[in-house]
């Protein structure tokens, strides 16, 4: 203890454990912070490198174009939100069963649900697409990816991100306070009341993080949407990709940067919402006890 204080006074002390963070710090600086600055820089430059707000204006205050862009952003939001809701609805009972030792001896079931994540998601998506199409063409004589692209995008997203929803819920369920559930039942609550009043409140942090884990990647992914809609539907990710690699107009990278920032903001806002929510539930818990 004394030695530590002494070191502090000298102003510099080599700390081995802290030094292990250096690679992480360098990595973050090079591949997260620096690119972010580059994106911000590009978002406010014109074709010749001068400062401008024109990129933002051309996207969001340009009649026909901005209508299309807002439409794409809105549609992406709808797809991400419905994916999130469906994922949680499916994942919740699964996580409950997985967390119950009666059904999930040796955790084999958990591995079965996580197994698909060992395979690259593009390959899984293409596999799903072929499977769904052969199914619907036998049943209805049409291919779902071509006939109902939005539905098939959501199915693809749910399929790919379901494990991300199961895992946080499962972790939360493991911590369920059984005595509280039993007490509720003993005190005369019917099963529906037990579920709503004793189980759900305990799992809210799990629900929130499951929502984040599915909402954020669905908001920014585009490969699944491209594959599951035969490239016929645009979501914000495909729009950005198009600006960066398919267009050669002078300011296409700049407009792509603006769109990237907008997407980042949407994700950022939803993370802030999660933080606020977390705090609220903690406070409530505090009050309760």
């Amino acid at each position, binding site marked *: 203890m004394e030695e530590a204080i002494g070191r502090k006074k000298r102003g510099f002390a080599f700390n081995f454990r802290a030094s292990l963070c250096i690679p992480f710090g360098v990595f973050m600086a090079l591949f997260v912070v620096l690119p972010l600055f580059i994106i911000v820089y590009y978002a406010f430059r014109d074709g010749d490198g001068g400062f401008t707000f024109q990129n933002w204006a051309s996207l969001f205050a340009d009649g026909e*174009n901005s209508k*299309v862009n807002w439409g794409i952003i809105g549609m992406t939001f709808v797809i991400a939100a419905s994916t999130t809701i469906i994922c949680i609805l499916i994942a919740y009972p699964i996580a409950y069963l997985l967390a119950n030792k009666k059904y999930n001896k040796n955790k084999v079931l958990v591995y079965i649900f996580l197994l698909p994540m060992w395979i690259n998601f593009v390959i899984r998506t293409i596999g799903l697409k072929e499977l769904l199409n052969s199914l619907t063409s036998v049943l209805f004589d049409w291919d779902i990816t*071509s006939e109902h692209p939005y539905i098939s995008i959501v199915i693809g997203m749910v399929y790919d991100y379901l494990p991300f929803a199961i895992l946080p819920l499962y972790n939360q369920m493991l911590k369920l306070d059984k005595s509280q559930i039993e007490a509720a039942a003993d005190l005369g609550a019917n099963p529906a009341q037990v579920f709503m009043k004793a189980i759900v409140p305990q799992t809210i942090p799990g629900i929130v993080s499951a929502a984040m884990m599915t909402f954020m990647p669905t908001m920014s992914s585009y490969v699944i949407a491209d594959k599951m809609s035969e*490239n*016929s539907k645009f979501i914000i990710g495909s729009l950005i990709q198009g600006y960066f*690699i*398919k*267009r*050669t107009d002078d300011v296409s990278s700049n407009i792509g940067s603006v769109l990237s920032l907008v997407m980042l903001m949407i994700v950022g806002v939803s993370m802030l919402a999660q933080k606020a929510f977390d705090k609220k539930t903690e406070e409530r818990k505090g009050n309760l006890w």
Partner: protein
Amino acid sequence: MKNKKLAWALPIVGAALVGSLTACGGDDAEVVLNVYNWEDYIYEGVDDDGNPIDDKGGVLERFEAYYEEKTGTKVKVDYKCFSVNEIMYKQIKDKTITADLICPSDYMIQKMANEGMLEEFSYNETTGKYAESLNNWDKYGSPYIKDKFASEKLNNGKSFLSYAVPYFWGTMGFTYNMDKDCANYVNSWECMWDSAMKSKFTLKDSVRDSYAAAIFHVYKDEIAALDESASDYNDKLTAIFNRCDDATISKVEAALKEAKANAYGFEVDEGKDAIVRGTYDANFAWSGDAVYSMEVAEELGVTLGYSLPEEGSNIWFDGWCMPKGANKELAEEFVNFISNPEIAALSMDSVGYTSSIAGEDIWDLINEWYSAEDGVAADECDLSYFFGDTVEGKAVISVDKEERGRGFDAQYPSEEQIKKCCVMKDFGTQTTAVNDMWNRVKAA
């Protein structure tokens, strides 16, 4: 103390690792030629399983051996690949890739040359000939391609040949299942708007190509009214083909939205395999991809054909260009080497696209592929427009009647069809308007 030592060792080990990695880069080559080409676009000297075919290696190894023998200088070809013109353009423009040779398509050559991004080849505009260093192209280049490239002018009045040496070329049409109903429709671009083709064909997920197809629909009456026998027929058709004024863009937008509602979806490279599997019956395709699909399908017992729509189509070229700052002498040497018909035939044989080079070796290759056996009903096909006097006698080949409308016709359209094929121009100042239109179509 022990920990501390270890900690200091970490960066040292790291630095040593990085050092050894970079040290690997050097070898005894005296000059390096940086080539930036399309994927799967050259003979690499290996078969489908990746085993070497002979000890001479691919085109690159052969060039290295040839150059060392000729000049005594050891050269190393640093070969990289791209898959989209636009990405390549940005990389060269931002200098994130340095290359001595690139292989863009026609409209991109035009754009890059007009923007002053390209070095000139040793080409004489008045005689229409390259210098001695590129004499293989002068000797063996197809007279048809030569004319086409010489007559395409850039903003500075010079021809394409000053900035690009043609490599492969082809057309745009439909790969289709010959046993399906669609065979009755794909001879016209109108099939994309025909309810009989609902969900049976794909559009190209590339604005330039789908735009061109829509033009044939939007201006079908005007195109039908053109006099095909007039000498300026192709010029007039090309002018319509490349229209991109605001009124045209909005007509094309409406047409593409309609076609999208009728189509199975968009694709850009998965289609050439999906058509074989039977996901759809017709695939809007480039001729080289069509040849690939037909070959794969044949092994599976599926009969695919290639249709070049009767209204006309696009004829495209990819050419070798030198970005500013390229090693001109070395680059010309390489282009001359691959313009040798013997080498061109190797690449054409393995790639499936049609070489811009004519000459005996290429002629032998297509005879080996398509010449009908004795005794079967065959059509006499005249390819003298393409081969000119680079082969002995008249370039006429007899092709099995059953095989018409397939590989041969995809690789070598008839002179009649060629008259209706137009070269794409860069959209110029309308680029943004067209791209925004494409966003609206994709978002619809």
